[in-house]
């Protein structure tokens, strides 16, 4: 009798734990329409002319996107919709630099990537300010980070909607990113 009720209690606990596990993350589907873009003060390199490194001040918004599976899979979709793959291919690079290696010309933190997409960069990268809503720029940047294994495989995109030459980001082996030559250490990390 006692062991029976103990079993029932354990089953109830297990069920509660299972149900709790259903809540993976909150999806913020309706961001504020009037929210202005965040002003991140990022540095492109840790090199500095003076004795102290460049000052970096970030809003911390990036951590939310890097931990969110929804945001990264949205970013993956927009990556194809907005023709990022026209130049960067599926991360391997084409007329634009590859994104799946460990070499970041303009910094590899999510704030750096957001800035690169928003402002554009010399020699071909156009500015998407005003064209892509801020929310989506952050989502694309989080996806770009996931290409080189820089976000957790728990949240990296799960499924390829179209034909890709590689498995989905969450199924790529947890090896370090492809070596891309000289490494500029990410300043914000």
């Amino acid at each position: 009798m006692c062991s029976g009720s103990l079993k029932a209690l354990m089953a109830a606990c297990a069920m509660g734990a299972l149900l709790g596990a259903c809540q993976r993350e909150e999806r913020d589907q309706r961001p504020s329409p009037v929210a202005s873009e965040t002003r991140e003060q990022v540095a492109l390199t840790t090199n500095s002319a003076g004795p102290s490194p460049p000052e970096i001040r970030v809003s911390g918004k990036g951590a939310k996107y890097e931990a969110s599976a929804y945001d990264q899979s949205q970013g993956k979709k927009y990556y194809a919709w907005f023709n990022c793959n026209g130049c960067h291919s599926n991360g391997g690079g084409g007329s634009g630099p590859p994104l799946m290696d460990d070499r970041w010309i303009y910094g590899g933190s999510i704030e750096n990537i957001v800035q690169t997409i928003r402002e554009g960069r010399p020699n071909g990268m156009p500015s998407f300010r005003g064209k892509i809503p801020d929310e989506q720029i952050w989502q694309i940047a989080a996806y770009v980070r996931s290409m080189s294994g820089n976000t957790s495989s728990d949240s990296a995109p799960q499924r390829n909607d179209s034909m890709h030459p590689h498995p989905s980001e969450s199924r790529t082996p947890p090896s370090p990113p492809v070596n891309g030559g000289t490494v500029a250490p990410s300043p914000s990390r």
Partner: protein
Amino acid sequence: MVALSLPSVLTGCERWPDALDPKAPEAHDIAWLIWTFTGLLGAIWLAVVIAMLIAIRGGRRVAPPAAGATPLDALALHPAGERSRTVIVGVLGGLTALTVLVLTGLSYATQRSLFAPRQEGLSILVTGKQWWWELQYEDADPSRIVETANEIHVPVNVPVTLKLEASDVIHSLWVPRLMGKEDLIPGRQNVKRVFVTQPGVYRGQCAEFCGQQHAHMGLLIVAEPMADFERWRDRQRAEAASPSSDEQQAGHDAFLKRSCVMCHQIRGTDAGGRSGPDLTHVGSRMTLAAGTLPLTRGSLAAWIVDPHGVKPGVDMPLTKLEPDELNAIAAYLESLK
């Protein structure tokens, strides 16, 4: 009594996606099948109920046990009664099997004719997306290919082939007054034939759960005489009308400057995005957002300013616009007849 009166109440509903009001041969076949099944099975059900009532009311006269009889005598077999009961049960069993066989045969024959592969007449490529329908009128001459969304115009009394594909998840096309359901499956092409006999506007709906806004994934089939259809098709082929007022010009400029241009195409302008619906002639459509809103200037503005208020979870983002840009864009889009 309630059960008997329910079908007549249901047919009394004059809502427009009505499978019992067929306007195409295929829908006629399906409606006929529905009525045959309902009629035959209803008659059988009624007969069973009546037989049961007679049995209950009539009762069975049981003779009082004879003097000196043991309780076991009541269970003794009476050969004559047994034989008649065996015959009754046998006949009823046979009739049941016959009913099942006949209905299965009818159902199979109708299915066979519905799904027979035929390809003829006008062919339209329908791609299901979350949550709208992309349409491409195919033609051997590339300059006659027409792209539009959510509103299928077809000529009456001409067979139309719908080639059904999907680009994200499984959808299903169902226009109750014209045809049965057919799935749109990523990675394969299903073919559906439509033959509309009566001009009119028919509402269709996605019939396979495809995500949060599945219920708001509608479409219209507009059947019209051949001459009208050809006129419509020529108009759709043309490039977008250029803005005819200052407000429309401002809307045109804002459309190209803001995020609209990333996803939508307006042929004849620089807007060439392919991931949202083609807006070249959006003003000529009857509805907006896959049958969700009537297409008016007001609903265009409401949809642009807050798509997630109308269809939560939709891919169209909230776009930051200046206040005077919203009205101008709505005016410009409305003018794209």
